[in-house]
């Protein structure tokens, strides 16, 4: 698990870990807490093309449904099969084992720093 300070964030409560040209994407602990116990995760398949800001997946808790937005333009290189079979990983380890997709990109849009994101959530 990377340091939270080293991650980038979106206003839609996603975190992005950039390694070379691949962005690993998950939702923040704040978002997971707000959703409650996550019971179903629907992720895009490897090889699918995603567009920044567009809904590419769903994260369902017992109470509600959260949408997963693609934070970058690119191609999904891997979806986390572990969270598809064990969605509770998103609650128990949102910044680690609970990652959702890896996206190969050519250009990174402006994202939020850790400080900017925590200012947004007030936590």
């Amino acid at each position, binding site marked *: 698990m990377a340091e939270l300070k080293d991650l980038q964030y979106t206003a839609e409560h996603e975190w992005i870990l950039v390694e070379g040209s691949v962005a690993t994407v998950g939702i923040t602990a704040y978002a997971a*807490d707000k959703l*409650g*116990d996550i*019971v*179903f995760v*629907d992720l895009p398949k490897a090889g699918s093309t995603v567009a920044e800001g567009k809904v590419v997946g*769903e994260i*369902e*808790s*017992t*109470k*509600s*449904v959260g949408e997963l937005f693609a934070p970058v333009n690119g191609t999904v290189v891997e979806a986390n099969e572990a969270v598809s079979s064990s969605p509770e990983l998103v*609650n128990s380890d949102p910044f680690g084992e609970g990652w959702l997709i890896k996206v190969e990109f050519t250009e990174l849009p402006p994202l939020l720093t850790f400080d900017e994101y925590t200012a947004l959530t007030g936590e």
Partner: protein
Amino acid sequence: MTDAPVTEPRRSPLHDIHVEAGASFTDFAGWFMPVRYSSDLAEHHAVRTAAGIFDISHMAEISVSGADAGAFLDHALAGLISSVPLLKAKYSLILEASGGILDDLIVYHTAEGEYLVVANAGNRDVVVAALQDRSADFDVELTDLTDDIVLIAVQGPASRAILDATEGLAVDAIDELKYYACAAATFAGSEKDSTDVLVARTGYTGEDGYELYIDVADAPALWAALATAGASRGLVPAGLASRDTLRLEAGMPLYGHELGLDTLPEQAGLGRVVNLTKDFVGKHGIEAGPADDARVLVGLVSEGKRAGRAGYPVMSGETEVGTVTSGALSPTLGYPIAMAYVSRDVSEPGTALDIDVRGSRVAASVVRLPFYKREAN
């Protein structure tokens, strides 16, 4: 306190206890109530297998007393309340003249000529006003006790053992206390005179359990004593998220979802709650009956993990035949369940329908409610 802005959600008298326990809160019917403490799934399972303790202080309690109390409630509500024996409870409805549902209620016959009416938080003002309005010709006194009473629910198979082990709590003849009955009790908190408690064997979870009505001042001590007694018996504090999935599995309606002004009791499967042998507000509407094409409440079950949720269309082929009113992936059963209003011609158990889940079809089968029924002990 009275000049607080009306938009500010009210806090339960037990608020500090919930904060201490790490609760997340939600605004529910104008109240700032615990939605979960840690995991709503864990809280749900605890109630099914051991016990959960809920703060439901937002519920409205209205005392009805006087020589005509029974006759008044027969007039004001859909059920025959005057026939409810002393220390028994009855589930009832308060209807508008058209027969539409103003609220669903529990009525306790607490003493000779005294009843306690428990209404939903969001309908408190409507119910108090309707009762006042209907009381003109009766010798009764109505008192809204909501602000004076805290309601604590202890639900789950370990509930009885927890009540027995709760220091300072003494319930009259608890061995005789049957489902949908109530008993007088006393609670002696630390260094205090004992206070009266009403203990009812009722709930909203589909499990055995109790609801305890107590003065605001003594409520934190009672909560603490219950929690202490429950600590070794699997009791956890439980929030409104688990309360909702528990009641959904038990097929219990929630006002604003399954019940409303545009719903007649029969459509909601509550025809049995209405007693047509007497006169009451709403009787004419009930006798006229719902329109032939009125939708009726059914249960829907699906395979997989994707649940229909309130507002999602129910389809039969390409025809929209209904709407989901509540739905979730059932924590106990492991598959999606939903309650929905559908056309009568597709309401028979076994009928194959689809739920439109955000643009994709999920196959669903009509079933009888409830989805979950606890094993008789």
